[in-house]
């Protein structure tokens, strides 16, 4: 390990990282590679397989040398084998070094490995003698031949393993004049090894993919959970402090007149708005800006402007839409369980409701209060809007429509009729107005809207 001038600190090991005993003594290359591959450690599972292959190569080489020493006397040209054996030793060392580096595990190295393995095979007839080979005596490469087969299998799976095995088996058989059982066996074994190891390598690759996906998923889940926790904490905080103070101000000031009373009323509005915000557990936003402070002319208008966002969404909890209209003047009553409607239905119904609430708040007089009730029955959903304002004079609606002012009839009746529902308006001067919107619920209109 060479460290150039100007590099300060400890020599090229990861010992400089305190508390990381596993890294101590490792070459810097490994450490750098780990850093680069963060956060997904690709290719770490396959490392043991490459290590096992290195062990196999040296073991096979030892076997080659033992066989040579034992059988050299019977060989035709034993001395010629010496440079070949030296070459095999050199290649075993070189290949082990090269395969340990992921960057080098590419085609040039794999091809070289295969060609080098062919050398001892092809010179075997000369060294050992053709008659002996024809009798089934192993070539001087013996099991060492399997090295590239295994390397190809680990690098490229079953197919490459089989390819390498076929090439080497073909070469092994080519150097023999006659074939018998014992001369075919090594080839079969190499083929099986290529298939088995290739299969295992593929499995490891797939497992690694899954592991990485799981790691990513876990990280994402953890982020989401953290965000949810933070949101819940905020909601708790708001509930414990802001909401209480606002409610207190509203309560204390309720009996005051003038500006103080107005402040109390505003505090009440804010309290209702915040309460709706922190208790909304549904992710679909209500068709309403976050703070329904201005229960005036703009409220329903902006509700309709925001409407298209939820038009084709999946099932929407109608309660979240309706709760968006809650304020100190608008009381909302719903069931405890979600009232799920197809997005389109909920959006149209929400818009009709918004128009009705807007109308009640605008025309009911400054003291008018509004009550909204959501009811779910097996086949219908009913939304009732009642106000205690000054009511609508009989014939007033027809008059307005005739004058081309389509407000109530268009916004409410048109929308509700479009989703197959009905509208009932009961109003008496001085006794407020009651509007009832009834729509068939998803069960009966599933084909059309589901």
């Amino acid at each position, binding site marked *: 390990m060479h460290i150039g001038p100007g590099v300060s600190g400890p020599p090229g090991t990861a010992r400089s990282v305190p508390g990381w005993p596993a890294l101590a003594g490792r070459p810097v290359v490994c450490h750098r590679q780990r850093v680069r591959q963060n956060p997904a450690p690709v290719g770490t599972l396959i490392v043991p397989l490459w290590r096992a292959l290195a062990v196999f190569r040296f073991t096979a080489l030892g076997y080659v040398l033992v066989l040579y020493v034992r059988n050299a006397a019977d060989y035709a040209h034993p001395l010629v084998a010496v440079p070949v054996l030296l070459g095999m030793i050199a290649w075993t060392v070189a290949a082990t070094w090269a395969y340990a580096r992921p960057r080098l595990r590419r085609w040039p190295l794999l091809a070289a490995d295969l060609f080098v393995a062919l050398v001892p095979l092809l010179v075997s007839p000369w060294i050992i003698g053709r008659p002996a080979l024809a009798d089934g005596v192993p070539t001087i490469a013996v099991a060492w031949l399997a090295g590239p087969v295994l390397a190809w299998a680990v690098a490229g799976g079953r197919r490459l393993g089989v390819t390498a095995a076929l090439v080497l088996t073909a070469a092994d058989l080519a150097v023999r004049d006659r074939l018998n059982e014992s001369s075919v066996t090594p080839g079969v074994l190499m083929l099986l090894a290529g298939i088995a190891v290739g299969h295992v390598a593929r499995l490891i690759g797939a497992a690694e993919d899954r592991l990485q996906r799981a790691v990513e998923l876990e990280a994402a889940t953890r982020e989401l959970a953290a965000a949810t926790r933070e949101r819940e904490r905020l909601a708790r905080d708001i509930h414990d402090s802001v909401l*209480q103070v606002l409610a207190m101000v509203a309560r204390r000031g309720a009996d005051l007149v003038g500006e103080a009373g107005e402040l109390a009323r505003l505090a*009440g509005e804010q*309290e209702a708005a915040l309460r709706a915000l922190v*208790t909304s557990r549904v992710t679909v936003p209500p068709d309403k800006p976050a703070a329904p402070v201005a229960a005036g002319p703009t409220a329903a208008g902006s509700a309709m402007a925001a409407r298209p966002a939820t038009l084709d969404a999946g099932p929407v909890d109608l309660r979240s839409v309706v709760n968006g209209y809650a304020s100190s003047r608008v009381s*909302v009553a719903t069931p*405890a369980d979600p009232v799920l409607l197809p997005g389109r239905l909920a959006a149209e119904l929400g818009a009709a409701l918004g128009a009705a609430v807007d109308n009640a708040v605008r025309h009911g007089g400054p003291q008018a209060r509004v009550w909204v009730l959501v009811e779910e029955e097996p086949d219908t959903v009913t939304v009732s809007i009642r106000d205690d304002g000054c009511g609508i004079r009989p014939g007033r609606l027809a008059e307005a429509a005739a004058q081309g002012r389509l407000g109530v009839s268009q916004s409410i009746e048109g929308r509700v009729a479009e989703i197959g529902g009905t509208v009932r308006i009961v109003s008496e001067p001085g006794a407020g107005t009651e509007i009832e919107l009834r729509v068939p619920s998803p069960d009966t209109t599933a084909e059309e809207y589901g």
Partner: protein
Amino acid sequence: MTAGAAVDAGEPIRVMVVDDHPMWREGVARDLAEAGHEVVATTGEGRQAVRICAAARPQVVVLDLQLPDISGVEVIRGMLAEQPGVRVLMLSASGEQQSVLDAIKAGATGYLLKSAGPGEFLDAVRRTATGEAVFTPGLAGLVLGEYRRLAATARPAGDEPRLTDRETEVLRLVAKGLSYKQIAGRLGLSHRTVQNHVQNTLGKLQLHNRVELTRYAIEQGLDD
């Protein structure tokens, strides 16, 4: 529902205030004291509330549903076990709908939002003490929804509580913000009859809840 009927309009009521927010606790206690009622205990913890309930013997417990230690339902069950005649008026800052419904089923008889004015609050305490059910329109909506849910998921046994048509009508009008007096006028009933109808809707739900709990206990072998 007549156990507390002895309470007259002017008579002081023994009240316990359970709320984890000190400012609220004090404000509510002061309002009650100024109105001539007797605040027998205040606490910010549910377990403590259950513990001191028997000794303090309140007629009405003003209970915030969100307490730091145990749920509102547990507090109500615990207190009713210690002091069966006690009446619980829930006060909540946020419309925690399911927990409000659970508390009602567990035996609370009144519910009020914290944003209600002092006059409304004192009236609710007095009505709760007399055994009257104090409904907000929101609570009426929840109770209506619960009966419809029970009807929709009815088992073959068919012992789910059901509302009569009249009760449904009354509950709907409560949920639409009409006062008992307005409802009485509209339906041609007496004020007292409207009150009884509303009370019955709660009574049936609470009875059903107790039956369900007993059934569950027997099924689980916890009845010994």
